[in-house]
């Protein structure tokens, strides 16, 4: 059973958002990392780049496949997890902690309200499995 912390917001593309003031911390979920398998490469944007909600901000690669990752919120990148360059496996080991990907200065903080709650995301992943 995938780990789905209660205090985060979730997207249907399997990203999570932790709200920290006007900044959103974004990563991929436990369910997502488990489906991908061993993560070997993470491509992240540069600080200062702007993204609209649901725009692709980078990619996560396993041995077998490439998956795009999408920013659930609009805004400017104010931080990226540089440690993932050398230790992409942190995405597998600690998807909600050391495996975080970007920090976004939200231009429209209301966008997180339209994201899924933990309970909704759990139902969503169950439906996707079936």
């Amino acid at each position: 059973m995938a780990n789905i912390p209660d205090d985060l917001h979730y997207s249907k593309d399997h990203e999570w958002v932790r709200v920290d003031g006007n900044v959103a911390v974004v990563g991929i979920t436990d369910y997502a990392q488990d489906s991908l398998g061993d993560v070997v490469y993470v491509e992240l944007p540069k600080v200062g780049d702007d993204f609209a909600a649901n725009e692709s901000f980078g990619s996560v690669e396993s041995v077998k496949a490439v998956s795009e990752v999408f920013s659930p919120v609009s805004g400017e990148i104010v931080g990226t997890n540089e440690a993932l360059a050398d230790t992409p496996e942190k995405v597998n080991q600690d998807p909600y902690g050391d495996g975080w990907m970007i920090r976004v200065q939200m231009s429209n903080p209301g966008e997180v309200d339209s994201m899924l709650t933990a309970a909704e995301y759990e139902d969503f992943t169950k439906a996707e499995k079936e």
Partner: protein
Amino acid sequence: MVDFGGWDMPVQYPAGTIEEHLRTRRHAGLFDVSHMGEIDVRGADAIAIVNYLVSNDASKLVDGQAQYSALTTPTGTVVDDLLVYRFASDHLLLVVNASTTEKDWDWITSHQKGGAAKLNNVSSDYCQLALQGPDAIGILRRLTDVPLAEIKYYHFTEGQVDGVPAIVSRTGYTGEDGFEVYAAADKAKQIWNKLLDAGNYGSESGVLPCGLAARNTLRLEAGMALYGHEINEDTTLLEANLGWICKLNKGDFIGRDALARQKKPGCAGVWSGFEVTERGIARDEQEVVINGERVGKVTSGSPAPYLKKNIGMAYVPSEIASEGQEIQIDVRGKLVGAQIVKTPFYKREK
């Protein structure tokens, strides 16, 4: 699980592709490759019939020997690559790819030239389990009296594995020492489980069951071609750098004239190995770029878990297919530096 030529196949087992790959290099990996097709050829003219259909010289085989070969088209391209096993001068077994078994069967039966032999598609009679890695011989020894150490590379013998009649072949698709065991299809589960037990599955240095993804990364590191990627019906054997299985002097075979014609001037493009030198992973179908010009295509691109590099194979113009040549790969719109290198990328110590 994914569909692979009509078979439900696991991409990976719970340990994951990287661990499966590394375990095979360091200890042992077990692969269920029962999906491979088998075509039995029996009769006085078995060798002559097969030799007209394939590019390598089956007449050079001795009893108990296997040979890598290819079914070629009249233009020298490849219907499939295969192993030819010789049991006796009047009995051969062709082991072909799963997704092409039906195509191969149709090709063979419609292109075979007369002679006395009976062909049978016996694919569903056999299971095939590949036990690969430095510990393979020690593990298999626990289940068989067959003198494994005496079987030379690309040779085989018939015997019993866990009491089940089997063909034990010292072949594989990983670049490691190892064996491929063929037995009756309904014995697959029994032999699989016994091999896992004999190999201490569950312990840190024990055998691991391996899925399709590890099978692909292992063969790629070992510089082996994969049908549908490096070889296909659009690429000749010579372009695929498989001149070593193209025996133009053995007598007539399908595609011989076309391959002989191509041999002299050489090929416009050939298959080459490359290593990514910047950050990024090359993937299948991405384009090879030199000085802004799109000159070729990646046929297989992947991280190489043992070498800890990102490697691949690509078709490039012959004039640039030399070691050290700098190229770029178009990785989803971003040009990533790479370099032509020698294959195999990985070679085991003997």
